[in-house]
């Protein structure tokens, strides 16, 4: 009878402990890696291929690129672009302007040509050279990983980009220009190919933001 009681009542107790252990492990994993795709962006919620851990892991690489001077310098917190590998304020203090293309005699395209100008520290170029517009500044400077991930996944803060547009954006010629910015400028820490792969993984796996 005693044995019967042991099996009947002690075993469920062990099971309970095991289940509790599993719950704790999952909880710790979750808290370490985040877990929220953007609430406003329904495209990313409960997708078939969603994998929050793989997504956040990929974003770590994406973030290293986005915070590099080649990306961040044109996503400043203020209205003056940044310049150089030390991200100082752009000499001459050109301003963003309403459309992001500058003001009056100080428009980006007045000095930045459709292509790089030859020589050390001469103006790099691209036909689309500009800051984000004043009504959607898409600031990278000073943003922590979570803040930046949530911003990029937010349709109302990312330049109104849906999933397809976000995926396309990594392949944009101006983004790609970050890896060919002329003499005297270091490229982002990943290759362009590695960046695109990380960007795609981050988004395809659900666009999760790290905690």
């Amino acid at each position, binding site marked *: 009878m005693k044995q019967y009681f042991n099996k009947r009542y002690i075993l469920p107790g062990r099971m309970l402990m095991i289940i509790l252990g599993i719950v704790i492990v999952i909880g710790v994993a979750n808290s370490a890696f985040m877990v929220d795709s953007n609430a406003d962006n329904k495209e990313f919620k409960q997708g078939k291929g969603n994998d929050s851990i793989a997504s956040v892991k990929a974003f770590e690489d994406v973030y290293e690129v986005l915070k590099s001077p080649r990306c961040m310098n044109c996503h400043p917190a203020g209205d003056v672009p940044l310049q150089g590998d030390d991200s100082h304020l752009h*000499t*001459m*203090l*050109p*301003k963003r302007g309403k459309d992001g293309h500058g*003001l*009056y*005699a*100080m*428009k980006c*395209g*007045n*000095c930045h*040509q*459709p292509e790089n*100008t030859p*020589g050390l*520290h*001469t*103006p790099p170029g691209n036909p689309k050279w500009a800051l984000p517009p004043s009504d959607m500044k898409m600031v990278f400077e000073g943003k922590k990983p979570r803040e930046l991930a949530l911003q990029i996944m937010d349709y109302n803060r990312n330049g109104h980009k849906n999933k397809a547009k976000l995926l396309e954006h990594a392949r944009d010629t101006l983004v790609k220009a970050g890896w060919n910015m002329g003499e005297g400028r270091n490229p982002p820490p990943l290759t362009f190919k590695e960046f695109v792969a990380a960007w795609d993984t981050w988004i395809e796996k659900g666009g999760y933001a790290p905690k």
Partner: protein
Amino acid sequence: MITLNINKKTYNIDVDPNTPLLWVLRDHINLVGTKYGCGVAQCGACTVHLNGEAVRSCVTKVSRAVGQKVVTIEGLSENNDHPLQKAWLEKDVAQCGYCQAGQIMSAAALLRENKSPTDQDIDNAMSGNICRCGTYLRIKSAILLAAEMQKKEGRKA
């Protein structure tokens, strides 16, 4: 052969398409009012208008100007009577004068877009034009005067 429209005239020039517009203006067309300063778009001395925008001609390849309208200081007005040119004389702005063509071309781009610029607007527009003589205060004063003249004359800058 490259065909350019400069100051409302057409020029056919045999030149490498990668040549900076500045050198085509100065060496091939003999429009020497536009000056060479730094050669890397840092000083503004070489500013000309490309379809009305104040581009730095030292870094602008001549190929970019093909099929576009280029205006230099020589073509800013028919009789040197642009409000800015008159205001520049009125305020006696120039000291050595080397940067002044670029200054005026940048100021003209400002007044085209903003008929009543504030001091801040002027700073925003002119911050890419350096004057080693330090005539900045007279430049600002002349731009404000030119804006007034422009309004009185009802002139389109």
